[in-house]
Structures are given as structure tokens and as C-alpha cells.
């Protein structure tokens, strides 16, 4: 698995780095992407795709989020409005002081994916962690075989990263992009239906040791796994991320354990083969 890179500026793994929100992108009615840099315009640390960051508004609280991608001088967090901290983030403006610590967790197994065809599956905000690896694969296109992205959301308005979906990712060599929505609207010309049924309809072949990376709501994951099994994907080649409540991010505060694994250290990325050896308590 990937080597963890630690923030060099941090005194303790629990003390964060002060940063600023430098840009906010409205993705959907309830999802925003926050670009975060240090006050002198630097990236607080350089995560590997799939790693996590603890983001905080100082007087509100801290929360663990996947780092959806990064630029040379910033990190991006795509966040759905769903609680106290995320509400405060959604009300924040550019220039708001935030703090960041990390990166945490193992990240996606890039070396394992290299040289292979990769199928990415996302549902709703679940595309956020997957996007870190899609972006990496596009930036290092020759390291990977054929790419395919299957992505679905509740409605056309709920599709996140529209600039990627409708511009940046449409001209990548040998990368297929298949979108679906649960409910269309007057302008939607694409597929209408749930992601698992769409997978079976598209029937991507597992041949050539293809790897599947998927993230989304638990119910979608459950049915996608059944679809992928029907298509013949190996458990070792199905990769997803798990979520648990976290406080420390460094395997000490206790609460993100699933069996003897800590999601913050040993995850959030797990293969289906690994998950089958863990208690189903997530």
C-alpha cells in the first residue's frame, strides 16, 4: 500500500495547519467543493489519491473528509451539507480561515492498478474520493490501460463535478464516460435508472485483470457488488472506501475500528476480499 506522507509543519498529529478557503465551487444544491491553501498560498501537504484530511472551522468543529483532488498549491474537499460542521462550511466565504491536518489513511493502491484497465463507479457524492484516482490516472494516462467511469446521481442537478463530466473528461484518450440519473428532467438525454442496473446494462468485462474502484451510498454499493459479482469481477480487484466516525485520524481515539482494523490507518480503502474478512459493522 501507499506510503503515508505526514505534514511536516504539524507539532503533533492532532494539531492542524491553519489554511484559508481560496475558492468555492457550487457543485449541486447541497454539495460544494472547497479549495484550501495555507495563508502563503501553499498546499498544506501532498496526499495520495484516496487519502483523508481533517478539515475544521476553528470555532465549529473538525470532520474527516476525503481529499477529492489537489492542485500544485491547494487541496480540494467536496462536501455535502449534512451536519453542524458541513452547514458552517456551506455558509463560509472565500477567505474563511480553516484548519487542515493529515493526510490520513492508506489511499488507493496505485501500484496495483497500474498497467490494468480500471472501471470507476460512483454514486452521488461518492464520486468525490474516486475523483482523486480518476484525476491521477488522467494525469498519468500512460500508466493505466483503458478507463471507464460509470456515475449516477438522483437527478441531473445532483451530478457533481459537471466541469469534469461534461468537459475535462470527455476528451481523455480511451476513457469511456457513462452517466445515469434516478429521475431525469426535460433536458436530460442520458440514461435514467439506478447505477447497479446501469452496470448490468453496460456489462463491463472483467477481462484483463480489470480493477473496479467504487464509492457511493451503502445501498448502492451493496447492489453494485452483486452486479459486479455477476459480471465476474474478482473480490481482490474490487476496491471501495469505508466510512466511520473519526476524531484523531491516527489510530488512537478508538472509534473507527471495524474489528481490529482502524479505518483511519488501515483504510479508508479496502478491497472486497479484505472486507469479507472483517465483521460487517460499518
Amino acid at each position: 500500500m501507499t506510503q503515508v506522507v505526514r505534514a511536516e509543519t504539524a507539532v503533533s498529529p492532532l494539531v492542524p495547519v491553519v489554511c484559508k478557503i481560496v475558492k468555492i465551487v457550487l457543485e449541486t444544491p447541497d454539495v460544494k467543493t472547497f479549495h484550501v491553501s495555507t495563508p502563503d498560498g501553499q498546499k498544506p501537504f501532498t496526499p495520495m489519491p484516496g487519502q483523508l484530511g481533517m478539515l475544521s472551522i476553528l470555532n465549529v468543529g473538525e470532520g474527516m473528509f476525503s481529499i477529492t483532488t489537489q492542485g500544485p498549491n491547494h487541496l480540494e474537499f467536496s462536501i455535502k451539507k449534512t451536519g453542524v460542521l458541513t452547514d458552517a462550511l456551506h455558509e463560509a466565504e472565500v477567505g474563511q480561515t480553516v484548519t487542515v491536518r493529515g493526510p490520513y489513511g492508506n489511499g488507493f493502491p496505485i501500484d496495483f492498478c497500474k498497467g490494468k484497465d480500471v472501471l470507476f463507479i460512483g454514486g452521488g457524492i461518492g464520486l468525490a474520493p474516486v475523483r482523486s484516482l480518476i484525476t491521477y490516472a488522467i494525469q498519468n494516462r500512460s500508466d493505466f490501460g483503458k478507463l471507464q467511469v460509470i456515475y449516477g446521481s438522483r437527478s441531473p442537478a445532483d451530478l457533481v463535478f459537471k466541469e469534469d463530466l461534461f468537459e475535462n473528461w470527455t476528451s481523455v484518450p480511451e476513457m469511456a464516460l457513462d452517466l445515469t440519473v434516478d429521475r431525469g428532467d426535460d433536458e436530460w438525454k442520458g440514461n435514467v435508472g439506478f447505477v447497479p442496473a446501469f452496470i448490468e446494462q453496460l456489462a463491463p468485462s472483467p477481462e484483463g485483470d480489470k480493477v473496479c474502484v467504487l464509492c457511493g451510498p451503502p445501498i448502492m454499493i451493496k447492489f453494485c457488488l452483486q452486479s459486479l459479482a455477476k459480471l465476474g469481477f474478482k473480490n481482490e480487484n474490487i476496491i471501495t472506501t469505508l466510512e466511520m466516525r473519526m476524531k484523531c485520524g491516527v489510530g488512537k481515539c478508538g472509534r473507527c475500528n471495524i474489528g481490529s482494523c482502524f479505518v483511519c490507518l488501515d483504510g479508508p480503502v479496502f478491497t472486497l476480499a479484505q472486507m469479507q474478512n472483517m465483521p460487517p459493522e460499518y
Partner: protein
Amino acid sequence: MKTIAKAKINALLDEIAKKSNVLAPVAGDGASKFAPYTQGAPVSLDGRTLLPPKDIFFPQTEKMYKFTNNSLEGSLESSFEATKPQVLFGIRTCDAKSIHCLDHVFLTKGFVDEFYQTKRDNTLIVSIGCNGPAEPTCFCKSMDVNPQEADNVDVHLYDLGSEYGAVAKSEAGEAFLANYAALFGDADVKIPEVAGFPLNPNLEGVTEKLQKMFDHPLWEEVSRKCLGCGACTYLCPTCHCFDVSARVAGDQGFRFRCWDSCMFSEYTRMAGGHNPRPSKKERVRNRFLHKLQYFPERYGELLCTGCGRCVSKCPVNMDITNIIKQVREVEL
């Protein structure tokens, strides 16, 4: 072996207290615990304290950093302070073992917790052996703990009746004994036999058996009476789960960590409301599996030292030795 009369312990503590802070077992406020020693104060070195010494290294609440947050602008300042050298005097071997477990958690697996480390590095530990159960609920002997001896300390004292036999267990411990040599004599001593323990849970094969018992109905049954009060986790010398929270007043505030308990439903509840351990069945199961299966899988040791505090103080008599017995009796 170096020896010191029990009657001279106060004199020894007075001498140590001239040079550094001393934390010793005192009875007060209805709960015996390790507290700063002041000259001539009565210490109770018989039996183990009700409260474990974990707060010496991992305080119940601990400030991590101060911050200001004024509209868009904010800054923070670490509250980290190096601990001044101190002596922790008179912990029992069960509690010495618990510090060994906490070391695994806070100092290994790629991340060192500086707040814990500074207290560990600057605390000289003097332990005392037990020649038998200090309390009726003691069962350390069954949990890979030698009641009479601890190794991960600086100085260990054997209980020889009217005196203690002292052995240095580290270089710092040798220097300590040399410093206070005037109070110690030299004698050929015989360490007494360890008396029998009434509680003797048999741990043989328990970790392996628990690996097959995640879905067993036993958890529903044993968790029924749990009140979810968390007393077991607060009194446990090895329980180390913590919460991170903030106190804010105006534009000033500080972020701190504080003890948390896996017995509380909020502990694992995520934003959006999903809770992977929604009922006490899952929470009680996680607590016992953490002690007896998960920690051994991760660190190679049990996360229970047999101190018996949870057994004696649980308001509904939840008894880990009884659960171990039931696990052994289950037919799979």
C-alpha cells in the same frame, strides 16, 4: 537486595518530593487515586487505587491548542508543554501492564502522540508487587500479568511484610536507588509465595474462539443488563478512547481531548445519523472483543490486566471473567 522498611516510605517520599513532583496513592473524596504528594501526607500503599493511574499520562481532559477565530480570520497556538520530571510511586503490576498497553496505542503504528510521550518520558515509575489478590475481584494472574513483579517500570518493590525489597529495572531506576541509598539497607531476602486468586478465568483459546463468535446470540444476552453508564471504561486502566472537542467563548477558544466511552451511542454516530453500533448489543460486543480479540490481533496482547475495577464497580454486575467463562462454554 536493597530493602527499605515500610515505616520509612514517608521519609523516602519526602526526600523525593524535595527534587521533583511525586504522585502517590492517596485516599480522598471517597475514591483512592494517584495525586500529588505533599510532605507528611498519608499514603495508602496497601491494595490498588480505585482510579487507575492512566490520567497521569493521558489526562481526563487535555488542552491541545488555543485558537482565535474572528469572522474570516483565525489562528492557533499549540498548548503543548513538556512535562517536568516526576515520580509515579506505588502502582501495582496490573497498572504497570496497562501502561505497557497504552504505550502501544500512543507511541506506535507510525504516529507518536507527543502529549502522551512527554509525560511518559519524564515520569519515573516505582511499582509494588502483590503477594496475592489486593482486592476480591483481582484476576491479573490469569491475564499474563505477574502479580509480584513488573518489568516496564524503573524501580520495582517486592512486598516482604514489614519492608520492601527494591530492584532497579532501568538505568533511571539505578540512579534513583543510588540517590536515596541512605534510606535503603541490604539484606538477603526471600520473596513470598503468591497466594491463590479466587477469580481464575481461563483465557486459553478465547481470542481464537471469539474470532468465530461475532454473530453469536451471547452478545444479545450479556448486553441486556448493561446500563451504558460507561463506568467500566472510565475505571479501566487500559481504556484509552477519546473525543476531540472545543470550548468557545466569543472569538477565543481551545480544542481539547477528553476521555470517551465506547458504551455511549454518540461514540460512533456519524453526521447524517448512521450509527454502525446502534444498540448496546453492538457496543458491549465491541468492548469485550476489543479487550480480548481485536487488541490481541493488532498488538499481540490482551487489553485487560485483571485489575478487577470494572468487576467491582459495574452497577449491574457485568463481569468480564464471567463473560470469558461463557465464551469458553459456548458450543459452536
